[in-house]
């Protein structure tokens, strides 16, 4: 038996090509169709469904995340404005109270000054009155003394 006979007429050999070839080709083609309906289609359907599911969810999550970020920024700006407004109100109130305090203080000072002035004037009056009286009395006394001295002479 010949072991190596390319396309040889004798049977056997490594390169013995016969009807096995087309039948094997038909078998492989049939296998392609069988595997397509048994394996590639169903598995592909499941895998692609899941991939779609995952990508949809991912997209949704991304959308939600961006929405959350937008809301967060919105809230943050609102917070910022509220904070600055509060600051403004507080400083306004502080100014107001400061002004009121100053006004009150000035008023009190004025009043105190006025009463002090009044008291001083009164004291001055009284003093000058007393001094006048004293002078008068001294004059009277001196006149009296003079008179007595003159009279006694």
């Amino acid at each position: 038996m010949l072991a190596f006979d390319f396309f040889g007429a004798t049977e056997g050999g490594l390169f013995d090509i016969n009807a096995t070839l087309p039948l094997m080709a038909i078998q492989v083609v049939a296998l392609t169709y069988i595997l397509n309906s048994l394996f590639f289609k169903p598995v592909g359907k499941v895998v692609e469904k899941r991939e779609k599911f995952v990508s949809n969810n991912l997209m949704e999550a991304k959308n939600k995340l961006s929405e959350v970020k937008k809301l967060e920024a919105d809230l943050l700006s609102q917070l910022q404005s509220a904070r600055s407004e509060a600051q403004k109100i507080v400083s306004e109130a502080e100014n107001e109270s400061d002004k009121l305090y100053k006004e009150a203080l000035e008023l009190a000072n004025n009043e105190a000054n006025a009463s002090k002035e009044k008291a001083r004037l009164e004291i001055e009056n009284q003093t000058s009155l007393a001094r006048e009286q004293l002078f008068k009395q001294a004059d009277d006394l001196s006149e009296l003394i003079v008179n007595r001295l003159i009279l006694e002479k």
Partner: protein
Amino acid sequence: MFFNSLPTNFAALEVGQHLYWQIGNIRLHGQVFLTSWILLGALLVFISLGTKKMENDPKGLQNLLEFLWDYIRDLARTQIGEKVYRDWMPFIGTLFLFVFVSNWGGALIPWRLIKLPSGELGAPTADINTTIALALLVSLSYFYAGLSNKGWRYFEYYVHPTPIMLPFKILEDFTKPLSLSFRLFGNILADELVVGVLVFLVPLVLPIPVMFLGLFTSAIQALIFATLAAYYIGEAVEEHH
């Protein structure tokens, strides 16, 4: 020729002997069909078990099958391109699975224990008929892919950068199936022969690393065959600008 001087029963291997089936006028290599039917039967059982109850949260076999599907899709997509890979994925996947199952089945299952009247069981891909059948299918596919996608413009490919390429491109149409078939056939047959000879000479321990190497080669050959087939189809449907 040079094999004639060697005894065909060299190292207890029966090289180039076949179990012939005679159907009418045609003769078939029975051992090739026997092993391929057993292996493909096992593959189909495995796949129908895995796809019996498909769930959205994959478990067990379904996981493995989905991994395989994803692997084949990636292979087809990278070689053929986004546009038409879907049409060719089952064919590429079938080639990969058929070659892989044949190679590994031939290497892993102790076929030697089953005695045949003539020839012996082994990897179906160690028979030149199988590999030529696969290679010719690939040739037909890429012609079909090119013609169905681009019509007569497919033949622009032959004169693509310059008309000087024409004879080389025509030659390529012959070398493609030739190299595809002989690469696979040679690798698997050589692996079987090496393991056979080593087992005959040193029946203990020593053949084991060679067997592992054979498993590695078998897997690589399946990948190479599927990748090249996909590449040829991709080349045929690619648009030149």
